[in-house]
């Protein structure tokens, strides 16, 4: 549905090669693409404007590096600007010198507060803390039961007083109970609320005042659109949060909301909540998010790694060969070994713009790569250079025996390799990004 920013920039800067500065016209093209990519990623309109302005300033007259394509160069600028805005390191939890540490969760309905409360409890327990949950959502049917069930699953006690008392009173008594019981980390779950509901917003302020939390976390669904800014500002006013939990990150939302809220509130995102399992919760690493928002993967990491591992001229020669369709098993092997130096394949492929999306539901098994490698190393040099020889069944049988694979595996590899040659040749003529055969992932 969306082109990645990397692809867009390359398209916009098509034909721009070599050294020299980016021209004004090029910068204009580029900033337009960045603007669209950010809007499609749900970054708030106002934030986009400011962001694009700062990128424009830096990109104008920027010297085009020899190592990177102009598109990659701009991606690098964008990435650096994103890092400036969102910070580059994770914010680790700090604990109160006089326990218990009290953390209050707040947010809109359905953004995942109760689940996040359970996950945070498990997270701090792994850090050696003794967590205690307090159920202050007295509105939604069965919200208390939900927290109780989560508490039972994790063997974390849950303080409840039912739906009768005021949430601020429950919170106060809950904290007292926790202190008396020797628990050193209290998590207060509150009801979901809409920011236009003044009664409810006053309530969250009262809960905050009564519980005097060391930290208030705004829980925010990563799919949230343009109005995230208003939501965050309202919660900042009433709950004065000092950090955010971004939830449902296991979906495919670009998550521009992260950029929006950090930029307007100045508060960092502290935690990332991934899935429905209680363990899927971690500190938030802003650098990972930057790539996701723009769909450029960790293209920079890839660029850096590639630059380190691969001589650029050699890479270009390889690339030419690849596109010409004269690619042999020998080249394939060489490339695979180069790739191996760069890290696990699944991670690497995710970094490649355009592939991340195609490979989203595909699990890549590095062991598969090892099997392919074994098959190729079992070929004679002649066979590697001339894959046609492998149509001979007795050769295929020998290779299968040598590599511990079946004859079918070898035939399949040869077939896929041929397809790849064909595709590469097509790509050389200007086709799209091909699938990677030989790595037939499972859905």
């Amino acid at each position, binding site marked *: *549905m969306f082109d990645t920013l990397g692809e867009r920039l390359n398209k916009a800067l098509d034909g721009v090669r070599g050294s020299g500065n980016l021209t004004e016209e090029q910068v204009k093209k580029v900033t337009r693409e960045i603007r*669209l990519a950010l*809007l*499609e*990623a*749900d970054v*708030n*309109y106002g934030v986009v404007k400011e962001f694009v302005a700062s990128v424009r300033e830096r990109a104008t007259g920027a010297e085009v590096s020899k190592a990177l394509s102009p598109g990659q160069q701009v991606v690098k600028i964008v990435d650096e600007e994103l890092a400036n805005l969102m910070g580059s390191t994770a914010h680790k939890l700090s604990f109160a010198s006089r326990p218990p540490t009290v953390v209050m969760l707040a947010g*809109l*309905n*359905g*953004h*995942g507060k*109760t689940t996040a409360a359970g996950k945070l409890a498990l997270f701090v327990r792994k850090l050696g803390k003794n967590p205690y949950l307090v159920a202050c959502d007295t*509105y*939604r*049917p*069965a*919200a*208390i*039961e*939900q*927290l*109780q*069930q*989560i508490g039972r*699953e994790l063997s974390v006690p849950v303080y409840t007083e039912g739906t009768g008392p005021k949430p601020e009173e429950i919170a106060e008594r809950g904290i007292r109970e926790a202190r008396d019981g020797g628990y050193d980390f209290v998590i207060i779950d509150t009801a979901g609320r*809409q*920011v*236009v*509901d003044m009664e409810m917003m006053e309530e969250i302020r009262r809960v905050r005042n009564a519980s005097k939390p060391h930290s208030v976390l705004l829980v925010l*669904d990563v*799919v*949230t*659109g*343009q*109005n*995230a800014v*208003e*939501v965050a500002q*309202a919660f900042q006013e009433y709950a004065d949060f000092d950090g955010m939990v971004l939830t*449902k990150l*296991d*979906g*495919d*939302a*670009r998550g*521009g*909301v992260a950029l929006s809220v950090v930029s307007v509130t100045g508060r960092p995102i502290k935690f990332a909540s991934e899935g*429905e*399992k209680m363990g899927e919760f971690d500190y938030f690493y802003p650098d990972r998010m930057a790539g996701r928002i723009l769909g450029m993967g960790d293209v920079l990491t890839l660029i850096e790694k590639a630059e380190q591992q691969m001589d650029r001229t050699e890479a270009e020669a390889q690339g030419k060969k690849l596109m010409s369709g004269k690619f042999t098993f020998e080249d394939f092997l060489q490339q695979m070994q180069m790739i191996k130096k760069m890290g696990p394949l699944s991670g690497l492929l995710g970094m490649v713009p355009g592939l991340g999306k195609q490979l*989203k*539901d595909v699990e890549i098994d590095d062991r598969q790569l090892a099997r392919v490698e074994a098959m190729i190393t079992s070929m004679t040099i002649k066979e590697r250079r001339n894959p046609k020889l492998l149509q001979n069944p007795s050769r295929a049988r020998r290779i299968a025996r040598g590599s511990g694979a079946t004859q079918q595996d070898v035939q399949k590899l040869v077939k896929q390799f041929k397809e790849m040659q064909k595709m590469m040749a097509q790509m050389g003529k200007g086709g799209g990004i091909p699938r990677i055969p030989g790595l037939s992932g499972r*859905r």
Partner: protein
Amino acid sequence: MARSWRSFFKRNTDEEQANGPVVASEPEPTTEDVEGNGHLSTDLEAVADKAAEAVPTAEEVQAERKEPAPADVWEADEIEPGEAEVSLPEPSAVEEVQDAESVAERQESEGWFGKLRQGLGRSRDSFVGQLNAAVAEFRDVEDEEFWERVEEILIASDVGVPTTAKLVGELEQEALESSITSGAELRELMIERATSMLEGPVELDVSHEPTVILMVGVNGTGKTTTIGKLSRFLPGTAMFAAGDTFRAAAIEQLQQWGERTGTPVVARERGADAAAVAHEAIHAARREGTDVLLIDTAGRLHTKVNLMAELDKVRRVVERQLPGAPHEVLMTVDATTGQNGLRQAQMFKEVAGLTGIILTKLDGTAKGGIALAIANEVGVPIKLISVGEKVEDLHPFDAREFAEALFGDL
């Protein structure tokens, strides 16, 4: 002015009634279906066993969610000796339930339009303010800056780039052709354009016996709450099926709605196979002569292949047991959702065959512009909107009024 609940439901026509219900007997069993030759059994345990066999195991789902394996037993408190397997509400609770028509009337007199506008809230003020200013400054249709500002306004309400481009393109074209010169004319044109983009078959088909409505959507978008609210407006009797067997206390949440609205709830224990619950519920609904069965499902991200497969299974089991069902597959979309809502709707449409969207939580600052994008790009009509937490805050969708609320009273 508001769209009435009364015209919202497509009910049985006389002809259909004369011909009897769509399905008169159990369908032919298949290998995956209920064993035996399918006549209604009165033996509760046998029914339960059959239901358990009727659907494939939930292994692939369990693998994804790592929940305890389901036991093929009824939830203990769901069966009293000599009673049906559905939990019947307390008589007092039933008395409290308001007649749907009276709820509908009261809310109509209050005016949901006002509520929606109020709901769109303070952000709307700035939004409308911007648009007002833009329209006031409108001089001629070739004013690039003016159109850029309209674009800006649409994008800021989550309409998204492609739909905004289309809408603004159309507007510009039409404004040129009909040589529009005043802001008021332009406003009317904007509303008309947005309305025609949003218009679709809004009626809810409840003409079957029983009608089966499947509620789907990603986590936290308001499925269970919407089921509870919707049951108050349905003509005839309703029944709930607690198909969210995954999330903690989801079953209890639906049961509380059951008590609140006087609706029986078919439930199994947490971790049970959702398809088995649906199967049992259809059986119960037919036996009880229930008019509308509302099946709740667990929230799932559209990217989770196994969970989407589970949903597909629920739908297939329902379809096999009652050909033609589910008659409505409704997806809840949170109004705060950004552009990812498009992908959500696309995937759920592919897997579950959506018949409509329910736009929830319009009482916040979100403008719900994603509805426009979904209607335009995915082609699923919006059927209902929810503008608050109360039962009477659920309304049949009215394209024109939504567009008006979006653009404000310029």
